[in-house]
């Protein structure tokens, strides 16, 4: 039997350790204007949201602005959270919409992949390539994907979010999430050496 790798790999992922009940209690307090509860929630979500926004938008200089726009909505709109999804899903959905808005404001296309051939040229399988170099190449390959594809990869691999929740976050059907992941993996596979573990 193949062990589900997620459990063993939690240390290197962004899986959130707080329970949904903790988050729901915090949101209820935020809705009543509890400033300390909001600060607790902000600090708990800051690392994950910052990473998600940075990996999705590829705009490090915009990360804190987008993150604070997101948490501003959380603070002032906490009373609108209706419990129909996890708090984390609700917050990530706001972050995704704010990220899309920021990208539209700087005229970044949301669907098209960019510069993928250029990355492919650098990604020739070379066994002498150092680990850091390969990771850089992979990072560039992921960067070359569209924001929609990057978001699915990041939410799946790092944040360990199930595909039906990703669909809720991104406001699209479940099949679209699977299709975007399939497309992203196919493009990445075309760029990278077949046996990454030889070098990683």
């Amino acid at each position: 039997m193949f062990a589900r790798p997620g459990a063993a790999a939690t240390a290197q992922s962004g899986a959130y350790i707080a329970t949904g009940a903790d988050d729901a209690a915090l949101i209820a307090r935020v809705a009543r204007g509890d400033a300390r509860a909001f600060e607790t929630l902000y600090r708990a979500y800051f690392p994950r949201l910052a990473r998600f926004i940075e990996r999705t938008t590829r705009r490090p200089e915009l990360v804190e602005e987008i993150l604070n726009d997101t948490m501003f909505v959380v603070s002032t709109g906490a009373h609108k959270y209706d419990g129909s999804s996890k708090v984390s899903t609700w917050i990530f959905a706001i972050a995704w919409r704010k990220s899309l808005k920021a990208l539209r404001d700087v005229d970044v296309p949301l669907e098209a992949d960019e510069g993928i051939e250029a990355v492919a040229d650098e990604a020739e399988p070379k066994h002498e390539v150092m680990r850091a170099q390969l990771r850089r190449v992979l990072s560039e390959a992921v960067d070359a994907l569209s924001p929609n594809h990057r978001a699915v990869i990041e939410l799946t691999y790092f944040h360990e979010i199930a595909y039906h929740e990703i669909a809720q976050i991104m406001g699209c059907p479940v099949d679209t999430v699977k299709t975007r992941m399939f497309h992203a993996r196919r493009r990445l596979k075309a760029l990278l050496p077949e046996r990454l573990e030889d070098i990683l």
Partner: protein
Amino acid sequence: MSPRVVNLDSAHGEVRELLPWFVAGTLDEAESRFVDTHLQACAACRGELEWERQLRAANNVALPGRDVDRAFAALRARLPAGRRETMSWRERLRAWRENVLPRPWLGWALAAQTTAIGILAVALVSARVQTADEAPTYRALSRPVAVEPARLVVAFAPQTEVAELRRVLLASGARIVDGPTAADAYILAVAPERLDAAVQQLRAEKSVLLVQSLEAKAAH
């Protein structure tokens, strides 16, 4: 969910579609069992699984950390006044109920701290009374009347940093004259006429957990 009956060709596609979430451990039990069963019989899909694991490991590299304090300060300045001000006593009481009561150990810890501070307060007051009783009553006419400072017991939040401690003390006009006690409390001294203001000031500070006047008439 009932067991799936699929032919091998369609199973390849379905399994590969689910592999990213299988690797991340976020499939439900039935889906996970379906993928697992297929992998045991399919070497090609096992190869895909290995590639998927490597891709995930390479993706999950750490990014440079960011300054959460600076970012939070920037957002706090934007929030409506009601959402950044300290809570009213009614909200504090409700927050205390929600935070402390579900965690009995925290309640006991606070009770122990409060008891220790109470014992300390009684000991200090009785020591002062005793000292006053034993002290000579003779006072030279030329000696200026000494004004005894008022004393307070204060407990700071455990994570309070020195800079914050200094700011709170300067703002309240008090200074530390003893401590930390066994309960991690400090004795502060303040000019008697500033006692009430200092108590109010300290109680408004986020880093102060408890303020108690040690003056005999204190009802602070």
